[in-house]
């Protein structure tokens, strides 16, 4: 997916991403400057807004949770060299699964059953929505990027239809389901653990964060420690070699896309069971797309994905703070920053490569000369 780099690993994994990030932020800073505000003040407002106020860290981590799910979703598909741009739709349909369980079973069953079943349903529904494009790619050669884009829109249409029709709360106008029962709600972090997490302040951060952390670990184990992970990576890196090795390439592509959809579906757990407490229109609000940026920045590795998610979480939460402090710049700045980061860390990922490579070479040569 990305051109090979001739840089030493540390430069490739640490230096380049930081350079790209700085470049993206610098361009955003310039735009803020031209809009007549001080970019450094804006940055400081964002940092304060993301970490320092009561509850702000909780909010940042709540956003982080969403990005971990969608980032992992994109990454697992990337490992099979599939570009899953359909995280939005998979998460949306995942929300349908979680919502149906919450609406139907919560009145009858206890929480310890409802929540795991909702998680399972979100994953299964999301998986199904990733599975179909996977099958079409693997067995019919339909380009995964286009199919998943189309599936986002199809999911959108289905959900609108359901939310204004069969699933709408009786007697209400707004397209949303009735509120879930209390035993279908993810416990908030500041309410559990006997106040251990009260330092996070009152925030939407809920147990889904723990689920996200488990997914990070599970992802690492799956990709680098299991046979399936080995097969997924082989298919992604060299499908011909995979065929030679007797790996069923189409099957692995389908599995990877299903897992990808399942991870994206879990977003619904954080958003619906954790925060909205009902199925609402467009609750995915672009998190699926941001997942692409997260996976790219995080180089498809759980550690990188966590860091990138945290960064985007901070940008989202800090960006919201801009509304209160400025007239000209708003939380939409976060969207702009996200676009710039995708541009520089994704599409222009290797722009600085020749330059850094030259610089490093000169620096290393100098080292050799002094040694002699």
């Amino acid at each position: 997916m990305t051109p090979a780099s001739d840089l030493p690993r540390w430069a490739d994994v640490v230096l380049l991403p930081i350079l790209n990030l700085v470049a993206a932020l610098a361009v955003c800073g310039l735009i803020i400057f031209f809009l007549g505000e001080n970019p450094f003040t804006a940055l400081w407002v964002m940092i304060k807004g993301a970490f320092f106020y009561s509850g702000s860290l909780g909010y940042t981590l709540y956003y982080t949770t969403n990005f971990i799910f969608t980032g992992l979703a994109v990454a697992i598909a990337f490992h099979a060299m599939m570009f899953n741009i359909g995280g939005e739709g998979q998460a949306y349909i995942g929300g349908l699964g979680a919502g149906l369980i919450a609406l139907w079973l919560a009145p009858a069953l206890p929480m310890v059953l409802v929540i795991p079943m909702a998680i399972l349903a979100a994953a299964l529904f999301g998986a199904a929505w990733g599975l179909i494009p996977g099958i079409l790619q693997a067995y019919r050669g339909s380009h995964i990027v286009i199919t998943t884009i189309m599936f986002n829109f199809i999911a959108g249409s289905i959900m609108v239809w359901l939310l204004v029709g069969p699933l709408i709360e009786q007697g209400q106008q707004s397209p949303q389901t009735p509120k879930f029962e209390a035993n279908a709600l993810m416990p908030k972090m500041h309410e559990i653990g006997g106040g251990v997490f009260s330092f996070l302040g009152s925030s939407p951060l809920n147990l889904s964060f723990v689920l996200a952390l488990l997914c990070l670990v599970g992802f690492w184990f799956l990709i680098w420690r299991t046979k399936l992970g080995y097969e997924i990576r082989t298919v992604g890196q060299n499908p011909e070699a995979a065929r030679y090795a007797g790996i069923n390439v189409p099957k692995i592509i389908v599995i990877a896309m299903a897992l990808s959809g399942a991870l994206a579906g879990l977003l619904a757990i954080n958003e619906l069971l954790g925060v909205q407490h009902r199925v609402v229109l467009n609750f995915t609000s672009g998190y699926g797309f941001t997942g692409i940026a997260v996976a790219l920045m995080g180089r498809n590795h759980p550690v990188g994905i966590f860091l990138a998610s945290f960064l985007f979480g901070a940008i989202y939460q800090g960006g919201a703070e801009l509304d209160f402090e400025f007239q000209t710049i708003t939380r939409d700045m976060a969207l702009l920053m996200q676009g710039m980061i995708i541009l520089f860390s994704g599409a222009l990922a290797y722009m600085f490569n020749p330059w850094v490579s030259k610089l490093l070479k000169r620096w290393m040569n100098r080292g050799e000369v002094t040694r002699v």
Partner: protein
Amino acid sequence: MSEFAYQLLLTLDATLRLATPLILCAMAGIFSERSGIIDISLEGKMLMGAFVAAAVAFTSGSPWLGVLAAMLASVVLAVVHGFACITHRGNQVVSGLAINILASGLTVTIGIALFRQGGQTPPLGSTDRFRPIEWWLVDALDAVPIFGPIYRELISGHNMLVYIALFLVPLSAFLLYRTRFGLRLRAVGEVPKAVDSAGISVSFLRYRAVIIAGLLCGIAGAYLSIGQGAGFVKEMSAGKGYIALAAVIFGKWRPVPALLACLLFGFLEAVSARLQGVDLPLIGEAPTQLMLALPYVMVVLVLAGFIGKASPPAAIGQPYSK
């Protein structure tokens, strides 16, 4: 004239209006994709064009200046796409996605800074916009059965940009199939090495293609905000760029079939708007939201080879290196 025929005529009229931005973006997509550059950023370029057109038309009072500015702004984004994909051999899907998100962020951010209306532009007066053009003899021909109403409703009475869009389709086909530029463009999307070894610069050719795509998306955007609408509204492109991309694929990367696909998709939208809340026999209330998903479903079926077979330009998505 029966009521049904009249309703059909109105629906067809709406079809043309709804299809216009699709047609412009589809032609844009054809130029870009035929040169080997995937363009999912039709959406973003159109949105940017819509904002700039409205902002400039509002400030200057001239819709034509608005279109020109929209084309320029859209071309800037197109060049960014080219810089990432052609010069730096970046991932074309990622670059397109970045441009879409950038356009969403930029239009609203600049809109708020300029107009302080939550990201919208102030509503445009009628002189700041493209107005419907009444053709000659509309009233005189009214008396003619069938042709009269068709002439009045369908052929006459659209704004300039609609006619420009329709004219651009044969022009695109001519450029693509009858000129040197078109031959080279078609070749570079299939076997860029062949073009390179014939002594033609692959990069320059592709830059020209993405710039043309930028120009066309700019017009499409202007149509949304100062042709069809009267001002810019946040996210007003609303997925039309993606439908246009679907039309490109549905039309197998050829201008005339893509035009037909745009008209079909426009028709579906017009019909579903008309059927909103209408009870149909057997079905009950028309599931208009589901009808809107039909273009996407159809593209999936085409891509999967269930309706015909769409094979994209062979070199699409692959950065060129010697």
